[in-house]
């Protein structure tokens, strides 16, 4: 990961201890390929037994291999696979802005990338 590829790191909520490879790629940028989990130049090998049926991958293996914390709520049978930590030790692994998509107040999705060509000041506030 150089500074020219975007960070896409966000927590994935799981209802069992497996993750769909396409959802995983969309959320994290790591594509599941024959040679392993790959992003930009990097490929991290995955053991054969972590590749389950229907394109699902064992979350514990992804957690260990990619440095993504896996936390559980046992009572509700829900897990969360957190953002990766291995690349820079920083919130930003790249200076390319991630393609944020969030709803506006009416619930319509807004893509940050739709403002390409303009300067953008992204500011956080809260009601609390």
């Amino acid at each position: 990961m150089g500074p020219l590829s975007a960070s896409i790191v966000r927590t994935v909520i799981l209802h069992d201890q497996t993750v769909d490879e396409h959802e995983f790629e969309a959320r994290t940028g790591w594509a599941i390929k024959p040679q392993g989990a790959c992003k930009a130049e990097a490929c991290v090998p995955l053991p054969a037994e972590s590749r389950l049926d229907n394109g699902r991958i064992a979350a514990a293996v992804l957690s260990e291999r990619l440095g993504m914390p896996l936390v559980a709520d046992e009572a509700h049978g829900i897990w969360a696979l957190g953002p990766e930590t291995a690349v820079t030790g920083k919130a930003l692994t790249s200076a390319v802005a991630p393609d944020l998509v969030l709803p506006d107040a009416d619930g319509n999705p807004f893509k940050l990338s739709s403002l390409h060509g303009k300067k953008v000041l992204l500011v956080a506030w809260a009601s609390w």
Partner: protein
Amino acid sequence: MWQELRTRWYPLGLEVVTVALDVEASDARPFIEQAHAEHPSLIDEAHVTDELFGFVNVPNGVWIDEEGMIVRPSEPAHPGNNPFTESFRTIDLSTLPPDVADILREARKIKSDPDVYVTMVDDWIAHGRESRYALMPDEVIRRSEPRTSAEATAAAEFELGQYLHRDGDHAAAIPHWREAHRLYPDNWTYKRQAWNFEDPMRQGHTDAYAGSWYEDIRRIGAENYYPEIIP
């Protein structure tokens, strides 16, 4: 608060995008409607922008240039003086309940120059990449928030909690949010969001959490609540 600046900045090529870090979108909506904002006003119920951009408090801001490159990472982003901050400074504390007066007394010690951030944005609009405030990619990454196992685990715990809360089981969210606070004490969005559900008036001490706004700010010192902006 940002709309006024947006009116000035938009014709010069800058768009403001506000993100409400509110687990309950309905808490943010009245403020958005009242602002009559012409800029995109987004709602981030899961605080994903904490993860993606390193927001840890409000107001925090990030600059993104015309090519989609972040040129300043998350930092305190005050929109200049406004009636809200003004009333904060001028209200007579003797008219308030003592615990509220204590909170405001601490709040008044918070160091923030309301105009410096706006001046920096003005400079960036005028000079683009040549602005002394526009940083190179390596520096942007270097200055961004830490992301060790502790902060990453806190993000996962916070999101697990907000999922359970939004699924209708608020009590189940509390242990996860408490853990997020323990792991990432510098992230005030995780703390203030959670305290606010238990005590919206004061974000005071309750059985649910180890800290409160008043206790935590006393512990770190109000002058450290917002890190100083490094030009």
